[in-house]
């Protein structure tokens, strides 16, 4: 285990962090404002990845296909989630967490099988576009995929956009207010229903975007929702419910624990991120940063 190896592994962990952050920030938004612990969030991520595969194939799989997939897949997920919010979730905001947790788990089972029906059980791969093919040498000469560099650029951009949305726009301000006191917000004459719907759709859109971004780096397959959703949930809890920066911090800890763990102890590498969550929650039971509720 030398310095270049550690550095390389750290970069791998950082590119994983970006994906985890994008997905878990969407989840955190929904959990913080709407108080829905959405297990189906991982399924939306899976739909995003499969849609990216289909769209990229429609446009010939090249450069154009990639960019269209990056725009199209999250939009499809957003439309699905808008439909789900208007038809089902808007009636459930007052239900107990346990019910919502199991209901969204039921949705994740349904979506899982629908994806199996539509796309089949085979592995799918989405080609990396020409621009991002190949490797760049890192310090120490180890090759690092250009696509992962692209991911590293995407992460901060999305974090800043989200921050602007939550803190600087009217809808973000209303959503934050509604997270604290729903009744008061509707009492002053704001249509809370549509604010909630938009927050739900934006959160789900992020899940779809995460799926579309991750698609070229992994094999797109059934079951990719189940591993991710637990990770995203733990990140959200670790960071503090509803806190975007908490999600970023949590994703960073989780991603790095994952990549470094493999380096430290290959056989039991997968236990490190879980251990990290436990340590964090032991010392800060309500998460690292301030939760919205």
């Amino acid at each position: 285990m030398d310095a270049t190896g550690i550095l390389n592994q750290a970069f791998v962990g950082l590119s994983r962090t970006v994906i985890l952050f994008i997905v878990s920030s969407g989840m955190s938004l929904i959990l913080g404002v709407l108080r829905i612990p959405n297990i189906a969030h991982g399924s939306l991520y899976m739909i995003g990845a499969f849609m990216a595969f289909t769209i990229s194939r429609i446009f010939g799989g090249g450069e154009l296909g990639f960019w269209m997939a990056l725009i199209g897949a999250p939009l499809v997920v957003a439309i699905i989630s808008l439909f789900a919010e208007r038809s089902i979730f808007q009636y459930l905001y007052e239900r107990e967490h346990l019910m919502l947790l199991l209901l969204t788990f039921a949705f994740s089972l349904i979506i899982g099988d629908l994806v199996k029906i539509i796309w089949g059980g085979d592995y799918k791969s989405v080609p990396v576009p020409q621009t991002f093919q190949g490797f760049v040498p890192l310090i120490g000469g180890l090759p690092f995929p250009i696509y992962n560099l692209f991911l590293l650029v995407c992460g901060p951009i999305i974090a800043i956009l989200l921050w602007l949305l939550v803190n600087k726009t009217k809808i973000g301000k209303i959503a934050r207010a509604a997270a604290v006191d729903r009744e008061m917000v509707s009492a002053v004459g704001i249509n809370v229903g549509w604010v909630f719907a938009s927050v739900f759709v934006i959160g789900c859109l992020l899940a779809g975007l995460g799926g579309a971004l991750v698609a070229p780096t992994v094999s797109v397959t059934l079951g990719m929702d189940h591993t991710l959703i637990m990770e995203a949930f733990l990140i959200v809890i670790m960071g503090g419910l509803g806190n975007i920066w908490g999600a970023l911090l949590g994703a960073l800890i989780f991603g790095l624990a994952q990549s470094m763990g493999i380096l430290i102890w290959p056989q039991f590498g997968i236990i490190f991120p879980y251990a990290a969550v436990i340590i964090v929650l032991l010392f800060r039971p309500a998460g690292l940063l301030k939760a919205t509720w």
Partner: protein
Amino acid sequence: MATGILSGKGRIWWIAALVVLCLVPLVLPRFYVYMLSIILLFGLLATSNDFPLGFGGIYQLHHAVFYGVGAYATAIVITKSGLSPWLAFLIGPIISAALGLVMGLICIRLSKLYFGMLQISLGSLVWAVVFRWYSFTGGDDGIHGIVVPDIISSYQGAYYFTLVVTGLSLYVMYRILKSPYGSVLQGIRDNPVRSAMIGVDVKRHQLLALIIAGFFAGIAGVLFVVVDNTVFPDMLFWTLSMETTIMCLLGGWLTFLGPMLGAAVLILVRTFVSTYTVYWGLALGIISGLVIFFMPNGVLGWLQDLFKHKTNLAEAKE
């Protein structure tokens, strides 16, 4: 709450049900007897999940980990040591209860969703260890061909063993819930703040509930080893915990027999659906979605409400 299930007019039905359950292996073919054993042990698992969840108000979201650890402990003791399998059947649940204590001590400071999430995190850690520790747990293959004592190695023997152990376990759990301790636990569920105010040590009572739940989940794990002779890492995966929680909710998580009913329904539907299609998840998702949406208290809870409503109407008329 289940009311008076072991007394009065109800008793005759219980004896009848027990007689039927005892006679079943004599008439039904092997597959159905096996399925009935699975229903019983999953019913026990779901009931033990409901013990802290429905009666203690604790978000026991990763219950399968105690089930899996109990089964693994039993399997490992049988295959790796020279101890008697009967002793292994005791060691499994004890280790599960110990795990319940350890995880409970770590999680109990948190409440509701945070508790559940920390439990899932710890459970995932245990799962990861089991999944990767090839030399000790068999890794992702699990352990197969576990030898159990001759008397319970046939499918009928395994069934009778499961029936007796499940029946006893359910009875013990029922007695615990009817005891002063059970009343305190339900008091904590209904109003933790008030319970603390009148001098109840809330955390200690909840911790005990977690240990009891872990113990009975371990027994369910032992029964699975007896019935199926295998263990595998999916027994500890969080999706199974979600399924047992759905069983509780489906049957009625505030009733004592609800989880057993939920387990029976779920496993019967699974077996039935699986013969026609591979899309079992779709069926489970739709069923549980409808139940949660329209009957948040489960089938048994719904029936109870209906019954109460009718008696109220009758009283109102008089």
